[in-house]
């Protein structure tokens, strides 16, 4: 299984280079922005998480799955390694973006607020939630169809959000509730990832290669 994770890293080298370039670009962009540009912090986890989806596309092109499963690699190992790689990519991406953002803020002499860090972690959480929904879809329908479905998954809540905002509905959340939500959210994300993993295993176990 470690071999599979190493494989995903090795084939993602070019994508990683593009990501790092984007990171630098966004850093400069953020530097020039008045408000310090939180783009970096929020977008980076998502980019790195999308890298996992790209590895699926590479695997398909290489017809890797049938070959891998002819080795002492079980189907659950294949699924687990994808989730593990995703987590590693996502955490690495978040760490890098926090470092870059901190540097920008330090250079600009601004203070990195606690809210920004929490916001960044929130972005990581959101990216992991997206992956929790996306990976089982990829296993079931393949990369291309899943990407299209993903757009729907993005669009629907966005439209809902806009519509709700139009109605002027503003949910009142007091400090305590907010604190509880913040503390609970990592557990919710982990639980979602767990459910997602089990669903993916079940789908992949039935797949005929």
């Amino acid at each position, binding site marked *: 299984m470690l*071999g599979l994770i190493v494989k995903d890293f*090795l084939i993602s080298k070019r994508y990683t280079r593009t990501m790092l370039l984007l990171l630098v670009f966004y850093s400069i962009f953020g530097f020039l922005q008045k408000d310090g540009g939180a783009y970096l912090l929020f977008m980076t986890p998502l980019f790195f998480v999308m890298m996992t989806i790209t590895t699926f596309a590479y695997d398909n092109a290489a*017809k890797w799955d*049938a*070959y891998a499963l002819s080795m*002492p690699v079980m189907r659950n190992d294949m699924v687990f390694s994808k989730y593990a790689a995703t987590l590693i990519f996502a955490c690495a991406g978040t760490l890098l973006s926090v470092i870059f953002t901190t540097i920008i803020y330090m250079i600009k002499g601004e203070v990195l607020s606690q809210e920004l860090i929490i916001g960044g972690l929130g972005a990581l959480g959101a990216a992991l939630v997206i992956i929790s929904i996306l990976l089982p879809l990829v296993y079931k329908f393949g990369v291309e169809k899943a990407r299209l479905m993903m757009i729907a998954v993005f669009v629907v809540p966005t439209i809902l959000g806009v519509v709700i905002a139009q109605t002027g509905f503003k949910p009142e959340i007091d400090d305590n509730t907010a604190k509880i939500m913040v503390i609970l959210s990592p557990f919710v994300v982990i639980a979602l990832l767990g459910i997602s993993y089990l669903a993916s295993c079940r789908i992949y176990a039935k797949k*005929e*290669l």
Partner: protein
Amino acid sequence: MSAEQNNLEITGLSKGYSGFRLNNISFSVPQGCIMGLIGENGAGKTTTLKLILNLIRRDAGSIKIFGMDNIKEERAIKEQLGVVLDESCFHETLTAPNIAVIMGKIYKGSWDNGLYESYIHKFALPKDKTVKEYSRGMKMKLSIAAALAHHPRFLILDEATSGLDPVVRSEILDVFFDFIQDEQHSILMSSHITSDLEKVADYITFIHKGEIVLSEGKDTLLENHGVIKCGAGDLERLDKRDIVSVRNNGFSCEALTANKAEVQRRYPGLTVDNATLEDIMLFYVRGDR
């Protein structure tokens, strides 16, 4: 006499798709032997190999590798299996050293990097080029190096030599021949290149439309079969039970017999040529009964 051990035992294997059915396949591959799997495209060769590897689920039957059930002991079996599929299955951007790293972690205990390097060297594969830059022959050799470097007992090859020039094929067949010198090793290879199988195979299993046509020793097969070449009139005289099928080609007739010695004895003036594996395949598939 010691009981012959089989590295592979397939009994009553069946798998149905819409429009195709693999029906009641049974054959065995003994230790120390190479078995060639022949059949036209769509006959069921790849389906059979995929069922052996548990890439697809069987409807009925049993598959035993090294005496173990191929599903219950899947991981233990696959530690000792070397597989080469007909397309190179490595990602384009990987190099031979990259592949060694990946495989080394997958075959934790058994990966022999020294052996891998020696094959890479023997096959003259450039270590700094990516798979994308390899020719088809190089890709195949790379796959074979990867399959052999963890000291497998049983090699399963799906069209591993198709699309390769005779020189490369000869190199590869030599490697297989070396592999089989260990009495515990076996090879199951599906191939369209019947001349290769005539060179190296000990047994031939012929699949047609999802069923086994024959599964026997290659030498016996070639000894028993012959191609009768005669005119239409002569053909009428022959006992129908001796004929597998007939092919008319305008001027004369050709018929395949599975009893060459008998036919030669009973019809002394008759021309009966040796049959090649290709002849046998063509007559069974395309001949008229």
